[in-house]
């Protein structure tokens, strides 16, 4: 059995930021020594979601926008599995935005990795919710009117307990962020700046390199909500990468008495009907 998580060689465009994310995810899982059989990965639909064929674990290639609720269902059914979501920005902040909010609120113990390329890659380059204001694309030839969605601030205000931002051009740094996210018990969002070399001529590797800086013990305290919000609002000149926020809280499954005896998927299915019928007599 495959124990190094690798699958088919990716069909992404040469130079695509997805390669860096793919490498970081494989490294993180290997470093964490997660047996692939204990890892469930749910993919949305997009260039990002295509990773399903390039990464070998227990894979569920779900629908565009719906990987988060699928992952929540998996975690409830088998909370012993590590559950990771691979999603695009259109996928997770557009089509499936509602799910992100509620999964964060629930502190469901899943790791949501968002490939933020500020465009829709797979459908050939329309704007994504994180596109910079004025960005011109096939669907917005005159430039996008909406302001970009702020994933970090959104997750922060909705109850996520681990929020990190990474850059696909900084693979070893990103590996650490993903490792910590998987290790974290509770809802984790890793928003990753991902250059799309084919459809996004604006936010290139160089563009990011000029702007990103790493968060560390000196310049940030991820346990401080106010400070985290300050970092979340840095979206223009300087872009923080690193762990923006982390706090320990009971997870959704910690709160389910049904799981205290064991995994739901292994529960005894028989029921004593007698105990239920009497109230109807």
């Amino acid at each position, binding site marked *: 059995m495959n124990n190094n998580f690798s699958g088919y060689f990716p069909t992404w465009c040469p130079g695509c930021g997805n390669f860096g994310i793919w490498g970081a995810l494989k490294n993180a899982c290997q470093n964490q020594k997660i047996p692939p059989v204990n890892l469930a990965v749910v993919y949305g639909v997009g260039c990002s979601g295509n990773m399903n064929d390039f990464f070998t674990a227990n894979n569920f290639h779900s629908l565009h926008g719906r990987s988060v609720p699928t992952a929540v269902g998996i975690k409830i059914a088998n909370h012993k599995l590590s559950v990771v979501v691979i999603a695009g920005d259109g996928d997770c902040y557009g089509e499936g935005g509602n799910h992100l909010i509620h999964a964060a609120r629930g502190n469901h113990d899943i790791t949501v990795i968002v490939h933020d390329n500020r465009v829709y890659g797979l459908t050939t380059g329309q704007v994504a919710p994180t596109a910079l204001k004025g960005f011109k694309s096939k669907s917005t030839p005159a430039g996008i009117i909406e302001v970009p969605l702020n994933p970090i601030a959104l997750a922060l205000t909705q109850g996520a307990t681990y929020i990190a931002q990474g850059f696909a051009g900084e693979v070893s740094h990103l590996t650490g962020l993903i490792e910590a996210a998987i290790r974290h018990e509770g809802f984790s969002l890793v928003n990753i700046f991902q250059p799309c070399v084919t459809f996004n001529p604006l936010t290139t590797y160089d563009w990011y390199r000029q702007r990103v800086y790493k968060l560390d013990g000196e310049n940030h305290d991820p346990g401080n909500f106010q400070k985290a919000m300050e970092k979340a609002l840095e979206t223009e000149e300087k872009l923080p990468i690193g762990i923006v926020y982390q706090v320990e809280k009971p997870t959704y499954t910690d709160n389910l008495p049904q799981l205290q005896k064991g995994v739901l998927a292994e*529960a005894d299915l028989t*029921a004593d009907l007698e105990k239920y019928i009497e109230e109807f007599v």
Partner: protein
Amino acid sequence: MTDLTIKIGGAAGFGIMTTGLFLGKIAARSGYEAFEYPEYPSLIRGGHNVVSVRIADGKVFSQEKKTDILICLNEGTYRLHSSELKDGGLAVIDQDKVDPKKLEKPAGNITLLHVPFAKILKDNSLSPVMLNNIALGVLMHLVGADLEILNQLITETFARKNKEIIDKNIQAARFGFEYVQKNFPAGYKTKLSKKASIEKRLFISGNEMIGLGAIAAGCKFYCAYPMTPSSTILHYLAAKSEKSQMVVKHAEDEISVINMALGASWAGVRSMTGTSGGGYALMVEAVSLAGITEMPVVIAMGQRPGPATGMPTWTEQGDLLFILHSGHGEFPKILLAPGDMEETYRLTLEAFNLADIYQTPVFILVDKYLQEGHQSVEEFRIKNLELKINRGKLLSDKDLQNITNYKRYQITDDGISPRALPGMKNVLHQVNSYEHLEDGHTTEEENERTKQVDKRNRKTATFLAKNAKLPVLYGKKEAALTIIAWGSMKGPILQAMQGNEDKFNLLHFTYLWPMPSEPVTKILKDCRKTLLVENNSTGQLGQLLKMVTGIGIDDRLLKYSGRPFYPEEILEKIKETL
């Protein structure tokens, strides 16, 4: 022969529904059969609620329009329903509140009985919420039922509250009882005296049967977003979740609901959701996902009148073809439509087995009428119904030890591939919303695509050979007319048949899809004359039968006012037809 229809109406918020339930249980505990149907607007307060309870010695299949006793807790009840009183019927109304001269008496010999509900409340400083208990007390004397049964029911219902509340409620019932005892001692002509030997009966709704069935089937994940008429499945299962160890999740929307259910199902849990048309419309894309990923899931689909928000608290059979055709692309799905409470329980159990065996979505297609109506069912019928849990081709860790090169979508003769779960030792697999190779990897290669489509379609053929069931014929085979119907229409039609067995029989469909063409064609050909009875405006079963058999039904009786059929309406049509 006892055959008694009682209607109780009043403003919403005054426990009208509870009164109906109590009455049904009193009937069951006295040894009778009963059927109850509530009608209420989509309002929490201020609207008009009415509940109709029919009680008889023998089988009771549905409500009836013609009423013996009408309890009017407001004037509206009298205005709206007094014309339904039978000749010789009785209306109870508080004439301190309504000028008796203003009460137009319907045709026939109707007795108007004044009960001063408001005065009884006031004189005894009882809270207005006790009104329904006074009404029950009144009824107990009118029909000569055992007041002790009512007292017992009150005690059980408020067992968690303090003794004072129980006593007050019992007292309220006694005031009603004693008032009638004194002022109308003879009571109503039909009596509900307690029988000497009593078969233990449940008085239960369709939604409770779905809940009970899910628990008995080992469902461990129920996920839903509230929507009438399916919300009470959610409420029932949530209330029992501690006992049943089922995780019951109210998720953020129906899209999330179904995708969570699919996630849980993939991880090996028997999963279910319940909704109505609008909520189901949101689920449709993921139902298609269940089709291609070959994921078991059970969906309780409760119909109400649409389109859009329609009439939320009323009933219709308007979604048969929507459900049948729902989900883009071609994939097998299984549609079951129970016709009564017992069938609802049995088919819920079966739905979980079929979902596991065929690894595809299975629908329990019900409607408000069946879901929120109550019917008495002998307890032994439910207890004796043993359906072994069958998880189909689900593999175990042990099975997997002997399998090398496991393929989730292995091509098989019956179309069903062995199923591993994430977390099992020694195997990794992929389920995929894209078309895939046998091992789950994405493909667009034409032969592989064709093979997978054929494989999935073969599940339909396997179902038709192994699990499909033909429609059931009720009544005399040689009857001149055959009514064709599905799902909840069974009740009113069987009710109409009582005493009219020579006139018509009923061909009732519960296994709606996949439907075997040849035998159904033969059955339809053998009918002398056919009449389609459906609670919708376009005769959807008729269209489906035409599609499957090419045969058109001779005549149709359709109702789409949001109300279920009364047996009387069916009989009228039959008179016309024959």
